[in-house]
C-alpha cells in the first residue's frame, strides 16, 4: 500500500455508548476536511468500512492516536480496547462514558441478573413467551454462533487499559475535539493523564455567573420540570440543582445557554476525586434550615442522589456503584429499590 509522506494514523472506535461522540466528529462540519487532510483514518467502524482484521494487520504502535468512546461492558468491547491499545502510541478516552463510565455505568446500581431479567422479562414492552435469554454460544447443526459476554459491571476505559489522555463531555464539543487533535498531532504532548479541557469549574465560564449570590442559601430544592425558571438568574439561586460548581468547564455553558442547569457531563476538575460527593457537599451545605425536619424537606427535591450526582461518573466514583450487589452470597438487608421505581 503506497503511503506518501506517511500521515499519522488515527483510529476511532465506540464501545458502550449512544453514538453521540461519533456525532461530535461529524459536527466538525467543514473542519472534518482538514482533519482528513492531516491524518490517515485507519479504523472507524461507524463511518467507514473497516474490519477488525485490518487493525490486527497493523504493526504494534503503528497508530498515532486511538480515540475510544463509550464505557466497557462486554468482552468484545474489552478485546477491542486491548487491541487498539497495543496498536496505538496514544489512547484517548473520548467522552464521558470512556472517561468516567458515563450514563451506562449507572447500571452498576444493579447486578447482571437484575438487568437481564428486566430487559428480557419484566419491562412492560417485552414480549418473550419462551423466556429467551442471550447465550454466549449457540449451536445449530455444526455451526456455532457466538455473542460477547455481558460483564457484571460497567467500567470506564482506564479501568481496563492504560489511557493517555481524556476528552470530557457528553459529547465533547467540536471545539474540544479540534483542539485535542491539534495537540495529539503536535510534537509537544501534554503530561500523561491530562484531561484536554480547562481545569476550572463551570461556574467560572457560566453566562449567569454574575447572578450567583455570594452566600448561597437554598430554602428548598426544586426539580426543573416542575418549576417555572427565571431565564437569567443562577440556577442555584433559584433552588434548582446545577452541577456547575463541581463540574469542569470547557463546554462554554451549552446547557445553561439552552436554559437548562448543568448535569455534570464534563466530570470533576483535577482537584476533586469524586464529583458526586463534591456536588452533594456544595449543594447540601447551602440549605437554609437548621432543624432535621426543615433540612429533610429542602432536600426532598433531590429524590435520587446517585442519579443526580453520578449521572456521568458512577464507574469512576470512589465506590464505583452499589457496594452491596457484587457478592451474591450476601443478603440484601436494605431497600434495593426496584427497577420500575427508578425508571
Amino acid at each position, binding site marked *: 500500500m503506497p503511503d506518501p509522506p506517511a500521515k499519522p494514523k488515527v483510529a476511532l472506535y465506540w464501545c458502550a455508548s449512544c453514538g453521540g461522540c461519533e456525532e461530535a466528529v461529524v459536527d466538525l462540519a467543514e473542519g472534518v476536511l482538514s482533519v482528513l487532510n492531516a491524518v490517515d483514518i485507519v479504523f472507524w467502524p461507524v463511518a467507514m468500512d473497516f474490519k477488525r482484521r485490518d487493525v490486527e494487520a497493523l504493526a504494534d504502535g503503528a497508530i498515532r492516536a486511538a480515540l475510544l468512546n463509550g464505557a466497557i461492558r462486554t*468482552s468484545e468491547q474489552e*478485546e477491542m480496547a486491548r487491541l487498539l491499545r497495543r496498536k496505538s502510541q496514544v489512547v484517548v478516552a473520548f467522552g464521558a462514558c470512556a472517561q468516567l463510565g458515563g450514563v451506562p455505568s449507572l447500571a452498576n*446500581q444493579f447486578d*447482571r*441478573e437484575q438487568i*437481564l431479567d428486566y430487559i428480557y422479562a419484566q419491562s412492560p414492552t417485552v414480549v418473550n413467551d*419462551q*423466556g*429467551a*435469554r*442471550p*447465550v*454466549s*454460544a*449457540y449451536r445449530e447443526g455444526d455451526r456455532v454462533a*457466538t455473542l460477547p*459476554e*455481558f460483564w*457484571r*459491571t460497567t*467500567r470506564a476505559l482506564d*479501568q481496563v487499559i492504560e489511557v493517555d489522555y481524556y476528552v470530557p463531555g457528553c459529547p465533547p464539543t467540536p471545539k474540544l475535539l479540534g483542539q485535542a487533535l491539534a495537540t495529539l498531532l503536535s510534537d509537544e504532548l501534554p503530561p500523561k493523564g491530562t484531561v484536554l479541557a480547562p481545569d476550572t469549574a463551570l461556574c467560572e465560564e457560566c453566562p449567569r455567573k454574575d447572578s450567583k449570590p455570594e452566600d448561597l442559601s437554598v430554602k428548598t430544592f426544586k426539580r426543573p420540570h416542575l418549576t417555572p425558571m427565571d431565564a437569567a438568574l443562577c440556577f442555584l439561586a433559584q433552588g434548582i440543582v446545577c452541577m456547575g460548581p463541581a463540574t469542569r468547564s470547557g463546554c462554554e455553558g451549552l446547557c445553561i445557554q439552552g436554559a437548562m442547569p448543568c448535569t455534570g457531563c464534563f466530570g470533576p476538575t483535577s482537584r*476533586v*476525586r*469524586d464529583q*458526586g*460527593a*463534591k456536588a*452533594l*457537599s456544595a*449543594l*447540601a*451545605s447551602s*440549605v437554609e*434550615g*437548621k432543624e*432535621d425536619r426543615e*433540612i*429533610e424537606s429542602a*432536600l426532598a427535591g*433531590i429524590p*435520587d*442522589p*446517585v442519579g443526580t*450526582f453520578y449521572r456521568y461518573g458512577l464507574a469512576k*466514583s*470512589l*465506590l*464505583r*456503584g*452499589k*457496594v*452491596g*450487589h*457484587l*457478592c451474591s452470597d450476601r443478603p440484601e*438487608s*436494605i*431497600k434495593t*429499590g426496584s427497577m420500575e421505581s427508578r425508571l
Partner: protein
Amino acid sequence: MSEAREPRIVGFFCSWCTYTAADLAGVSRMKYAPNIRVIRVMCSGRIDPQFVLKAFACGADGVLIGGCHPGDCHYIEGNYKCLRRFRLLTRLLRDLGIEEGRCRLEWISAAEGDKVRTVVNDMAARLRALGPLDAPGRFRDWGKDLEELEHAMAGEGPGESSRAIEPARNE
C-alpha cells in the same frame, strides 16, 4: 476474608468538642472499644463527603463523625453544614448499598468523655452485627471477569462466566 475480623471504624472528630472529649475519656482512663481510628479535623464542617466515601472504599466498616452540639460551633455554622451534608449523604450511601448504621453523626461536647465511650462501644457492637463491608474485596471481584476473559482467550471457546447467564431456553 477472615471470619472474625473486628469492625474498623474511622472517626472524624472536631478538634474543639469531640476530639477533646475523646482526650478526656483517655485522661479519665475510660475503657472503650479499640475499633476506632480517630482523625482530628478543625470542624465537623470541614468533613468533605469524599472523606467518608474514601474511608469506606479503603476498607472501613463504619464512619463516625463527631461535632459540637448545635449552637456551640466554634465557627458558628460549621456543624449545621455538616448536618445538612450528612442528611443527604445518608441517602446516597443507602442507595449505594451501605447500611444506615455504618455512617453515624454524633454531637459530643468537650465535657462528654463518657458519651464517646458509649457511642463507640455501641457502634462497634452494631457493626459487628452487620458484618464486614469489605469494599476493597468487592473491587477485587471487579477483576474476575477480566481474568476469565484472559483464560478464555488463552484457551479456546467462550469463557467460564457464560454459565452464569445461561439459563436460556433457546434450543
